């Protein structure tokens, strides 16, 4: 049974050192919960971007919360480079586990199947392979006639998946709509923590139209209400991004002193609920 709780409580359920899966911008980035994590001074997170990161990943890096990062790319999109990420990498403080988007999807899909790996075509010849000793090249075991190298991607099993979505019901079922990557994340992770815009009255599985986009409470450890929980990012179909806030963040992310000032104000501002 899923627990209904608060955003701060959700943050306290993510221990230091957790392998934490985070969704890409626009698809339900749990920014309210991220701010709560920074407030509680979480440390040594091992982030898995699904499959890319933006302000959320950049903030966590800048706030000193991240020990490892597996990603296909981190950027602030229209607002330019992710300054804290770039600073951490060029200073040597962080060496990301470089990936490519479909490999992260494949790793999570392997985990949800309980399989050790999934094979993927492509990638051969990319320098990513040189720096990912955990990605292996095997010969296609089904090809008896020719050499046929294939990359295998090991299962990715995050300790925790954290995301935001539109609504959850009393029982803790959550409606993700067409954001199916959230379902894959939840299936792959040991625990799933969700923040939601609002409570759905009734049971989401009673309406067939909603049931198809619903993740069962079976997978959900805790849910917390967080209205506008993606802000300053937008949430597709719900609200747009706060352009001024994102522009201000992009600027702050590119200087050590500017970021320190930003972080102090951001972390201590009252939580939006």
């Amino acid at each position, binding site marked *: 049974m899923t627990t209904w709780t608060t955003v701060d409580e959700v943050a306290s359920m993510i221990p230091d050192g957790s392998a934490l899966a985070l969704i890409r911008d*626009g698809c339900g980035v749990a920014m309210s919960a991220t701010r709560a994590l920074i407030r509680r001074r979480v440390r040594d997170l091992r982030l898995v971007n699904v499959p890319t990161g933006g302000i959320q990943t950049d903030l966590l890096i800048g706030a000193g919360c991240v020990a490892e990062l597996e990603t296909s790319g981190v950027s602030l999109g229209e607002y330019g480079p992710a300054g804290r990420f770039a600073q951490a990498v060029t200073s040597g403080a962080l060496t990301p586990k470089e990936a490519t988007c*479909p490999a992260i999807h494949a790793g999570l899909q392997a985990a949800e199947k309980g399989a050790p790996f999934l094979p993927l*075509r*492509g*990638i051969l010849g990319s320098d*990513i392979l040189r*720096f990912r000793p955990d990605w292996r090249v095997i010969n296609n075991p089904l090809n008896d006639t020719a*050499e046929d190298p294939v990359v295998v991607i090991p299962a990715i099993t995050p300790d925790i998946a954290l995301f935001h979505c539109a609504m959850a019901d009393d029982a803790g079922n959550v409606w993700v709509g067409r*954001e199916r990557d959230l379902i894959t994340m939840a299936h792959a992770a040991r625990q799933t923590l969700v923040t939601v815009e609002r409570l759905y009255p009734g049971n989401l599985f009673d309406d067939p139209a909603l049931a198809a986009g619903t993740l069962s409470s079976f997978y959900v450890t805790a849910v917390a209400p967080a209205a506008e929980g993606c802000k300053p990012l937008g949430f597709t179909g719900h609200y747009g991004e706060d352009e001024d806030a994102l522009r201000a963040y992009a600027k702050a992310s590119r200087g050590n002193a500017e970021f320190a000032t930003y972080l102090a104000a951001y972390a201590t501002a009252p939580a939006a609920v």
Partner: protein
Amino acid sequence: MTNFNHHELLIATMARLLDGTRHIAVGVSSPIPASAALLTRHQSNGATRVSILGDPSNTFWSDGGKELFDCAAQGRIDAFFFSGGQIDGAGNINLVGIGDYPRSTVRFGGSYGSAFLYYMIPRIILFRPDHDPRVLVPKVDFISAAGTSPPGVWRRGGPYALVTGKAVFHFDSNEGRFTLQSVHPGETLPDIQATTGFAFDVAPDLSETESPDAATLSLIRGRVGREIAATYPKFARESLGIAA
């Protein structure tokens, strides 16, 4: 002679490279490629399908972010666009960083889907509006995606052309080299040679990049402009004269 601006030239030029495709996908932050794809759709009377990431009215995907990659893996996408922090003469692209990886001195975002899509999609168009020897280098510092593969490696796709603010190159996957095909109006071969960091061949029929005709310009400034304004209002206003 009809007047046109630089962006209109690039849109019309890339649309010619997309002619005959069934399904073009366009990544985020790509107003010029997205406009070229929409122009192709109109010129094909709708026979070409266009998917624009981040534009819900121009995507049919309902199975998460993985569906784009699954589509590409099955051969359901014919054309796509990549930029590149660095692009070298062998068609390798670097989206990771400049310098001796992992100690990059400049860090870009990351390889994103390139290490997969570059092998899956037949017509990858490399697009860099700035034609700069620091971008068009002899050898990339990090291969996000390789331009060619050795025999025996399964591969359907790869670089097809490179369009810059100065010229159009075609890529020969057998030779693993670019051939300069046309130079944009006002550009010269010596200038292209001076500003391209890698060696390339020159087509025997090297020409000036074809200017967009009146019908093409009218589509760009009309239906394409209005459609692209939904995702890129600033670009549509400033480059194509579409009122908000």
